[in-house]
């Protein structure tokens, strides 16, 4: 029995020797890159890559750090080189594992920026849902803003994109690095969120239409709403519509249920984009209503006005993006490939012409469910 005990002890001791962690890096030794900003450098062909590094202690609750984050700007050819140069400057090991956001400066977006994204698509270090936005101006400025609602700017921006899309039609978080990989492989266009730097603040609204990884043009907040309806990824938000004088001044609807589906259709040899929109909401605010809100007639009239208004927004957006930018972020190409693979194959050579001549057909249905607490009864 004694022999056995000794053997067990030896084996237990051996396991201690055998177990080791080659890959262990102490958390204090890591520089967590939480945000990346890409700007054009004055040096030709080079980028200004700004890394936002969070202090490891900023991740821990109840810890007070004087400086929770800092930004390091590196002028280099691409993100990987910038990261490697960063190693020479700090005593920590940079890691992208907790990277929240990639901000692309306007100037960088204007050239084909897919070449800068290869590392982010290829590496296993960055997670696939790394959100991406285009900054109208210098991307670095966003990372320098001091926020009251959160300590680290990268977290604030990614939270805005992540959460606020559920409450506003004018913000889109549609693209992340995983989806950009798809766009890159298949040659799809897409819309990135637009961030406008203000003095000590920012505004996230509108979008940047990206055609073959080049900035084709900007969309306003309202146009982003149109684009999101066309793309079919709306959730909930507010819809503001001007009313004709007999109904009131303007109405704001709070939409809580939304459904929109765009389907391509081939009639003859022509491509049609058929959009069905169905929104459901309550009246949130209405300025100087001129008749009884609690009547079927009023609701019907208001519905018609709002529906027409919405259709106009969608049509304007479609026309602008289709005709002015010649871009298809509405996934019409993608859907035609699946709906009508033979038609697509036959027309793949001159797809741009087919798309440009495509016509949009909309049918909208708006349901006003409730009017709130006030009936506005007229005598």
């Amino acid at each position, binding site marked *: 029995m004694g022999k056995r005990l000794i053997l067990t002890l030896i084996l237990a001791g051996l396991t201690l020797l055998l177990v080791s962690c*080659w*890959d262990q890096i102490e958390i204090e030794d890591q520089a967590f890159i939480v945000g990346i900003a890409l700007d054009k450098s004055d040096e030709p062909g080079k980028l200004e890559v700004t890394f936002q590094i969070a202090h490891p202690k900023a991740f821990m609750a109840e810890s007070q750090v004087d400086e929770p984050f800092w930004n390091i700007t590196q002028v280099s050819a691409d993100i990987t080189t910038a990261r490697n140069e960063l190693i020479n400057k700090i005593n920590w090991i940079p890691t992208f594992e907790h990277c929240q956001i990639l901000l692309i400066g306007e100037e960088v977006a204007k050239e084909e920026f897919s070449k800068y994204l290869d590392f982010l698509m290829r590496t*296993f270090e960055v997670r*696939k*849902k790394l959100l991406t936005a285009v900054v109208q101006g210098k991307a670095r400025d966003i990372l320098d803003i001091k926020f009251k609602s959160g300590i680290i700017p990268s977290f604030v921006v990614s939270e805005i994109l992540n*959460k606020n899309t559920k409450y506003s039609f004018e913000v889109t978080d549609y693209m992340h690095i995983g989806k950009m990989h798809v766009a890159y492989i*298949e040659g799809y266009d897409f819309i990135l969120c637009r961030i406008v730097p203000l003095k000590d603040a920012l505004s996230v609204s509108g979008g940047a239409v990206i055609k073959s990884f080049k900035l084709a043009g900007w969309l306003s907040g309202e146009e982003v709403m149109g684009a999101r309806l066309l793309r079919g990824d709306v959730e909930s938000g507010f819809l503001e519509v001007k009313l004709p004088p007999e109904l009131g001044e303007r109405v704001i609807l709070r939409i809580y249920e939304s459904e929109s589906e765009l389907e391509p259709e081939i009639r003859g040899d022509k491509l049609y984009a058929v959009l069905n929109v169905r929104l459901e909401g309550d009246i949130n605010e209405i300025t100087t209503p001129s008749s009884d809100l609690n009547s079927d007639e009023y609701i019907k009239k208001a519905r018609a006005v709002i529906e027409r208004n919405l259709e106009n927004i969608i049509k304007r957006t479609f026309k602008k993006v289709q005709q002015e930018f010649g871009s298809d972020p509405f996934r019409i190409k*993608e859907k035609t490939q*699946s709906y009508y693979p033979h038609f697509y194959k036959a027309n793949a050579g001159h797809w741009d012409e087919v798309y440009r001549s495509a016509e949009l057909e909309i049918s909208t249905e708006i349901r006003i469910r409730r009017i709130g607490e006030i009936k506005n009864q007229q005598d």
Partner: protein
Amino acid sequence: MKSRQGITSLQATATVVVSILGIAVLIMPSSASEAAGIDGVLATLFGGLVALVLALTAILLGRHYPDYTIIEYSQIILGRLLGKLFGFYFAIYAIATTATVLRGFADAMKVLLLPKTPLEVIMITMLFTVVYQVQGGIGTIARINELFLPPIITIILGLIALNIRDVELFRFRALLSEGVGPIFMSLVNISTGYLGFEIVTFLTPFMADKSKLLKYGLAGVVLTVIVYTALVFVVLGIYGNKTTSDMVYPTVHLARRILWVESFIERFDIFFLTFWILAAYTTITAYMYMASLSVVRLMGLRNYKPFTLILTPIVYIISIIPQNSVQFTLLLNIISYAGLILGFSTIPMLVISKIRKAGTKNG
């Protein structure tokens, strides 16, 4: 407590499932979409049916010789010389597959979890664990498989469930747009993903109730068909066929997509891979067991345990031969087709043994 080693029915199912689920879990969606495009979903389903038929013939064949493994009854059916050659082929295949799966496992671990750990260390630790397990005999292997089956299946199904919301159904409108051609052409390629079902040719003699292997063994294959088809469906539905084909480890991509900001679930891939190690481990164990047993039975000996140790360095040497991922893929393809030939070989053997039986009855 019965001292007799006997595999229960459930253990048989588990053994079949975890032997099939190995490195193919990581690459199945991209190989399916590479072979058949969006039709890869149907190809995975029908490829699974091919595997099901092959497993069925193997089990039926085993029923004729309930006390033997394929190494022995192939000698009865094909004659001594041909049978020995077949057994030799099987042994080589099993050894090479052990090595390939080991290498595939180590490569994935190095890329995804342990970038700085030497490949050799990953492989040797895994190999020693496997050898230790195989020394325990088929009873132990079956018990471990039974134990590992729930976590393996749960993590894969969990991965599917967490991503299924993002599947875009419109992509599947292009199904069959090229006719059944692409599916038919890719069946052979896809069914290699189901290799591992060969384990049924070794199970019959060890079953506690031999008649149950048919039902429970096939149930195992059916389960993997469901798992693989669902996996391919989700990946293709999210990424489309071109992007899926472009990925090295599409299943890991699926895991990397999962992110709940509110509940702080990030990097689900590490969680997934931890459980995937179990799947790789059980697959290597199954092949190592088949390799040692077939070598020993080929020599007409009974105790395979010393031979496991003899095979270990051979397996290790084969597994370090590929110099890069391209060469590894080549090796993987070679052994996959070698395995498929083996899978199909049970059909003529079954026919021969049926004819013989009929002959003995009449004469």
